[in-house]
């Protein structure tokens, strides 16, 4: 009925107000392109966000949008999906919004497997409030609230998601057009909650915090793009990941000399997912792409199938009033 939409059709007329050079621009571009590529419609697409730089996102997408309150976007989106399961809902959040003030809602949205996409822009810092350390900041992060360096352990977003029971976990870098695009399309195709961590560069308060692996010159050595059914290799195929049974952990091996030991990615294996997510530089590369995907019944499916009438009104209140014993006077 309507013409095919392009990425441009999903860009709103609102003036974008992120800092020049912010990684969010690249993500916005990738998302509008993905929306066009998957054939989304503007009226049935809804972006719901909380508070923070990332949460400005809905203003810039030509769709329905709800800029809610700090940390609560998953809860608002859950109510929306419950009432309107047919809508294509995206939740946009950040490391502070999603894992600090809204950690509880993120946990339960993932556990319930509510059918929306969760894009968590991780920049390891509070940007909108001017640079305080966040729950994903590495220990030692100097910030206005931690002048001598933070001392708290950081939360790993994907490990959190896996622990919460997420059925789709993926990771991408803001400026990696191809990798991010593929992950967004996969997230959209997934039935249930899809959790996507996007490494996002905050040019003002935490510039280049991911440079060690996100930088072009380190990409080959430090990025491992996983693909279901393909060997887990990086460094242009020179090195691969193997499982060391003695230490119950991964190790990096020469992919040609020990080719038979190189693991083949199984995206349905949560143990492998845990090992991939937890890999730390510099000994290991950073795993990117769809790390875990194992669909299960969604929250909406459960809600509507367990509901007596699938939310349809099949009875009258006038009769419901009389379900108990009544008596007549006069």
């Amino acid at each position, binding site marked *: 009925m309507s013409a095919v939409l392009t990425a441009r059709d999903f860009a709103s007329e609102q003036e974008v107000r992120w800092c020049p050079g912010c990684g969010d621009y690249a993500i916005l571009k990738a998302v509008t392109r993905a929306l066009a590529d998957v054939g989304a419609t*503007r009226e049935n697409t809804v972006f719901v966000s909380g508070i923070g730089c990332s949460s400005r996102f809905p*203003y810039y997408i030509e769709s*329905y949008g709800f*800029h*809610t*309150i700090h940390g609560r976007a998953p*809860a608002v989106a859950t109510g929306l999906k419950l*009432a309107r399961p047919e809508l294509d809902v995206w939740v946009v959040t950040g490391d502070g919004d999603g894992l600090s003030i809204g950690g509880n809602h993120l946990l339960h949205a993932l556990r319930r497997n509510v059918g929306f996409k969760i894009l968590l822009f991780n920049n390891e810092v509070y940007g909108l409030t001017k640079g305080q350390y966040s729950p994903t900041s590495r220990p030692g992060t100097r910030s206005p609230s931690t002048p001598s360096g933070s001392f708290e352990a950081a939360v790993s977003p994907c490990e959190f998601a896996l622990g919460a029971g997420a059925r789709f976990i993926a990771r991408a870098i803001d400026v990696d057009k191809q990798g991010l695009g593929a992950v967004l399309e996969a997230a959209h195709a997934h039935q249930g909650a899809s959790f996507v961590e996007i490494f996002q560069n905050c040019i003002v308060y935490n510039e280049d915090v991911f440079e060690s692996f996100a930088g072009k010159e380190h990409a080959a050595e430090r990025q491992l793009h996983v693909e279901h059914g393909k060997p887990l290799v990086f460094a242009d195929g020179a090195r691969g990941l193997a499982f060391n049974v003695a230490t119950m952990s991964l190790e990096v091996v020469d992919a040609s000399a020990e080719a038979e030991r190189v693991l083949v990615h199984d995206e349905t294996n949560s143990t492998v997912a845990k090992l991939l997510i937890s890999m730390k530089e510099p000994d290991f590369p950073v795993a990117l792409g769809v790390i875990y995907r194992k669909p299960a019944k969604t929250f909406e499916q459960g809600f509507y199938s367990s509901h007596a009438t699938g939310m*349809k009104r099949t009875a009258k209140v006038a009769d419901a*009033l009389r379900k108990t014993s009544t008596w007549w006077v006069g």
Partner: protein
Amino acid sequence: MEGSQDIFAESIVVRFAGDSGDGVQLMGTQFVAATALSGRDFATFPDYPAEIRAPVGTTFGVSAYQINLGARPITTAGDAPKVLVAFNPAALRVNLPLLEDGALIVLNTDSFSARNLAKAGYSKDPRESGELDGYQLVEVDLTHMTLEAVKSFGLSKSDAGRCKNFWALGLVLWMFGRELEVIEDWLGKKFAKNEQVREANRAALHAGHAYGETAELAAAMPHLKTDRARFDPGEYRGVRGSEALALGLAAAAELADRPLVFCSYPITPASPILHQLARMGDLGVGIFQAEDEIAAACAAIGAAYGGAIGVTSSSGPGVALKTEAIGLAVNAELPLVIVDSQRGGPSTGLPTKTEQSDLYLAVYGRNADQPLPVVAARSPSDCFETAIEAVRIALRHMTPVFLMTDGYLANAAEPWRLPDLDGLEPIRTRSLEAAPGEDGRERLFDRDPATLARPWVTPGTPDLMHRIGGLEKDIRTGHISYEADNHQAMTRLRARKVELVADFIPDQTVERGPDHGRLALVGWGSTWGAIYQAVRQIERTEPGVSHIHLRHIVPLPKNLRELLERFDRIVVPEMNNGQLATVLRDKLGIEPIQFNKVSGQPFQVRELVAFIRKTLAGDQASNVVPMAQGERS
């Protein structure tokens, strides 16, 4: 034949009391079922502890169920019980001070062991200490008789003992001359698949009833009698506040022809509404048990954003957590109903006791200037109408609305003449569609001049894509705006929206008494029954005393000030420290006399009567009464 010990009265207050596990609440509700069918008016008050199963035999574990029944209009569960059934010494000790002089006390003597007496804090057996002189005692070895009655059913000793509430119920029903059929029907349905339990309870019920009959022969058992009440013609049922509220929300959804999404986190005493609605799926109702109070409010907002009727429900501590989300609904101009089943506070306070102390929270308790309408239910059956009214305002004015109820209303029951639903006006909402070729978004914030409400445009509507949120918006376009003049205008608009609700609510009427006079009692919420009864009692000797009861607190009815000015004195009785009094001072500039009770217990009629008399006798010029005067010594 009536013995000299028989009781015949216009109304009789009965109280059942025992351990949490004695089945006292069930006994009460079954007694109510039999009372309702006998044509008496009634009001009930379950008074239970916060502990689910407190240590057996302790005073803090005592659970009670009170019912006031009779021929006259019954509006409260009664001040002082005339009949007490006490399952153990602790129940006797806790409830004795409440009783009317000369009350009839049915005691389970099996429980009067030295150990139980000690647990209740009795150093001597009260039956021997003279403490019970002046009361009419009926001593029954209830546990023993129950075990005898059910021994042929092969239940374990503890299961058999659990039938004693039905034994006691049988006895009390005999005293009141009631039939057993309605109870037997209930047992048949409840234990349709458990013949052993069903038959054992039936046997216990009959045994208790037969015991009354046998003892009557020995003239040892009194009859209790009241006349039938005069009800308006119609079809009736018994209803608890939580049931009526749930049905009212469902009725509102039917009137608006939209689904209802009810989002809640378990909390006492609000949870029964969630449980009720969970069984109303066929009325287009969906429930969502959220991970916390904030999520419950947010999910209701999300559902409303999607075009459903979003309702969230809690008690004070939970509502406090929801306040930021309520602000979002104010700013985004989405309909939302927040049900507050008030309980004793502050903090966790008295979860199972009743109070009216969240009025400040509803009226004033949010950051920034964010007014919203507040309505309050007055009685169990009134929860139905008030719930419809709350949804109606929310949808018509595109605003969150507070619906105030309390722990007393949630659990109390009364007869309810079933309303004619066909006579209710449908709830209309205003949506928007873009004409072909038109940029309909220019009309997204075209407000209804009568309400200033924006159209309700939900995702999925073609060509009207737009963004809403918590940031201040431009008054014309809805886009984000930080303009100074715009914020001033939006703040005014939000206030005006709520003021305009007053154009849609009826003028305030007088519940009872003349429309001018010496003194008006102005109440809100569950104090309705006690205030009404107090005025009824006093009007013959003290003319010029009236009862005015508010359903709409924000905004107040337009004629309220003019109405109140026709009285010499305004008394505001409240189960808080003076919150409605503050609102009346604030909004109307009047200076009411406060009568405050914050004990976790409802007002007693006699307390109100005494206060009215004292106030009428007092200095005409003075209308400021120290708060301490309102408290019971």
